[in-house]
């Protein structure tokens, strides 16, 4: 079940340091979001990080084979968790998204992403003899993706649900489904979208309209986007400087510690800082990707690729939200948004990635 302790030394240290850098930037950002105060966010996030570290070590030490064996268990556990959330969940902000576990409010949907990817990795690993994957063989992963999507969507948490669905689709695509199917489905969606639009309720259509033009409702739903764009735009080339972001310190920016942390960062550090942050996340994304080219085991490849993609993808979605490219759907900025579940799940993901990046592959690794 466990690897040798010495194998901890073989982890990809560069990747690990980049992780620490990103987390540290997030800490500084939370510190500035509180107006130059560790309380209430930076200190709490740091405590969580420290508390979660043993879990990271635990995962780093796991044999990939062990993980391979328990994928179904994890999936079932997560699905149960989602069901518990639905029936006994803790309601906040108009949605049932959390269950209380040992003093923490756990957002199970965050872990659904991991379990889905691991499950798919095993599923396609087993199919690895097949040259290409047809529609029939994709049906099980597709159904499971849709099941998880629905369980999360009804909370309601459309943002997380969509991420789950997209990760599922990316995994299927990566695993090698015939190109004709994704192309066909994209065409279908494109053709059906006018019809889908009429299916939306008026308030949902209204939300989309406000996203397209926030000035329709500058004090209501458009307020977030407008203020976020002002914060980012006023950052300019080099930013207003550390702790000098007025949009943040004067509370013009709502939800600045969660969904809009990027706006706080960008207001202080400007276009230059933002590009540097994007580059850091890009490198962080590409390190596991490059590793996948050297790997032959489908299980390893899918986990490394899709989970690394997940972090980068969430980063892009979050930033796109804050700059008005996407509607505000509540996707956290990995390692930088304040929140335990997102931090824990991303730490688990990174532990998994570091674990798999450090294994010496053998031919019959998972048989």
């Amino acid at each position, binding site marked *: 079940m466990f690897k040798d302790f010495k194998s901890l030394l073989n982890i990809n240290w560069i990747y690990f340091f980049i992780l620490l850098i990103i987390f540290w930037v997030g800490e500084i950002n939370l510190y500035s979001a509180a107006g130059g105060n560790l309380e209430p966010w930076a200190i709490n996030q740091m405590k969580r990080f420290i508390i979660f570290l043993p879990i990271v070590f635990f995962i780093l030490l796991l044999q990939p084979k062990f993980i391979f064996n328990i994928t179904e268990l994890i999936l079932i556990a997560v699905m149960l968790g989602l069901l518990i959330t639905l029936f006994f969940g803790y309601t906040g902000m108009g949605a049932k998204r959390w269950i209380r576990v040992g003093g923490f409010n756990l957002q199970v949907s965050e872990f659904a992403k991991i379990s889905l990817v691991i499950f798919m990795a095993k599923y396609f690993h087993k199919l690895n*003899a*097949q040259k290409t994957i047809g529609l029939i063989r994709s049906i099980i992963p597709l159904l499971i993706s849709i099941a998880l999507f629905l369980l999360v969507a009804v909370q309601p948490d459309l943002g997380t649900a969509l991420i789950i669905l997209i990760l599922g689709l990316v995994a299927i695509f990566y*695993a*090698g489904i015939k190109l004709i199917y994704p192309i066909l489905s994209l065409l279908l969606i494109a053709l059906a979208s006018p019809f889908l639009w009429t299916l939306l309720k008026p308030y949902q259509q209204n939300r989309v309209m406000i996203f397209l033009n926030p000035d329709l409702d500058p004090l209501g739903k458009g307020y977030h986007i407008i203020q976020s764009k002002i914060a980012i735009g006023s950052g*300019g080339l080099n930013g207003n400087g550390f702790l000098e972001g007025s949009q943040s310190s004067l509370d013009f920016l709502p939800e600045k510690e969660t969904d809009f942390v990027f706006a706080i960062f960008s207001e202080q550090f400007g276009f230059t800082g933002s590009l540097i942050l994007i580059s850091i996340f890009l490198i962080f994304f590409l390190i596991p990707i490059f590793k996948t*080219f050297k790997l*032959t085991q489908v299980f390893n*490849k899918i986990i490394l690729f899709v989970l690394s993609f997940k972090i980068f993808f969430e980063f892009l979605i979050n930033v796109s939200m804050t700059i008005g490219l996407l509607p505000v759907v509540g996707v956290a900025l990995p390692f930088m948004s304040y929140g335990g579940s997102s931090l824990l799940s991303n730490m688990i993901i990174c532990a998994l990635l570091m674990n798999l990046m450090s294994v010496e592959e053998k031919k019959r690794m998972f048989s």
Partner: protein
Amino acid sequence: MEKNKASQDSIKILNRRSFIITTIGLILSLIVSIRLFSLQILNFNFYQKKSVENKVAVKATAPLRGDIFDNEKNLVAANASLYEFVIYKNLNKNYMDEVSKLNKLIKLDLKISNISEKLKSFNAYTPFILSRANWQQIVEFEKNKFLFTSVKIIESKKRYYPHKNLSQIIGYMGKSSDDKHLYPKGVFHLEKTYDELLQGRPGKILNEVNSRGKVIREISIEEPIKGNSLELTINLKLQNYAQSVLPLSNKGSIVVLNRFDGSILSMNSNPTFDAQVFEDRDNDTINSLLNDPEKPLFNRAFTGFYPPGSVFKPIPALLGLKKNMINEKTEVFCSGSTSLADRNYYCWKKGGHGIVNLKKAIKESCDCYFYELAKKINIDDLSDLATNLGLNSTYNIGLSNAQKGLIPNKKWKKSNLEQGWYQGETLITSIGQGYNLTSPLQLASMYSALLNGGKFPSPKLIKNEPSKYLGEELNPNDQKAILNALKAAVQEPLGTAYKLNLDNPNFVKIGGKTGTSQVVRIKEEDREDDLYKTKEIEDRFKDHSVFVGYAPIDDPKYIASVIIENGGSGSAVAAPIAHKVLNFAYQENV
């Protein structure tokens, strides 16, 4: 081996797919970067402006209004403290409860629902003015202060007018109609005309505020600058004295002019009002003022227009002299009436004046002399000369509702009455009746023109305003003839105002002319009626009593123009008042 081969192909597919997805990921990051470039570099100025607009709140602070002084530096308009009940929404969540409590305790008569509505959208950190507070209310509030957390009393400024008798000149302040003005502005008379000069420059406090409008810190303070002060030509002593000699029983007015520079030394109108009521928001008094049929807001010296009566006679006399229609020796026989085109025109003196020359005609105010002269006069020439000598002109002295009055001519009659001019109307016009309308200030200016030899300084109310000269030069001999006659009217027996010397022999010696301005045109048959002569005609149909005089007689400086509405003859009522005022001005050397 087969399987292995297939597996390797499958790995290749994965790597190819990896390339596709990674490329999509890179494209997405590029899009995000371009968007950031657009926000932070291309539209930086726009968003920076928005950010500043978000956080900087500009608060204007009212400047002190400039003081107004009389010509001896006595304060006649100043600033006084004012206390107001205000509420700060941020200090108590249930602020409306406190408003109701205050309303009950102090009996402020607030409109609670109205205030509640306004407060809903009001900034929580800015004081909202509930009501003014007088001393009793302040004391009552202080006793119960512990009941309130969000209600406070703040001090601000209001206008203070210590002398009621200047209200007709200074005017008053009112709420500004446009929203840009945060504080009251002058809305009447000098307060209005010189508002820009008096108002000063508001201060500016730039505050950094958070999203709820709470002030985080002061960025900069620009102190308000007090408005410029204004020095009037009015002499407070004379103004008060003149008001005191105006009879309370009749409407009327007095203007005193310095003929050397046109300074208006006093300008009174009765009834008058107290401008302070507008500052004190005494609504009952304000409403009764606005609706009073006696029109106390109406400055009769400036905006009251009446037929001048006989005080107008120097003008046709000057025209006759100028056109050589008459000379000083020309004599006319006054039988009490004359006729023109089958109509009779009567002298005020029923038996007539007998043989009349120019001096006697003015001194005794013979109408017939002027009727005979007027038969030769072209009305347009008369109107032009009168206009040159200060009548029929608008004086922009800073008071509201300036008007021109009227000395008729042919063109005026054609365009206003659509009728041609009759020479008979020239006869009536030349004795100051008919269409003529002049204000007491215009009459004072006309006599200033006579005394100054035609060119006279335009009347003014502001001390350091340079004097503007109006009018046209008179022939000195003509001027002398007129002044001689005006002197005789007061100084020689049979003069219409000779009685003044007998009544007050110690007063300064004056010259001048009496006038009786007819309110209703007297018909021929009424003339014969005894009723007309008795004092029992209804008051409102009585003639206005007019007098314009000047003193001292040898080197005149002061001109007083008096009208007493429905006062009767000029010699009986207006002349003694003018004499008193001229004497006061002379004795006090104002």
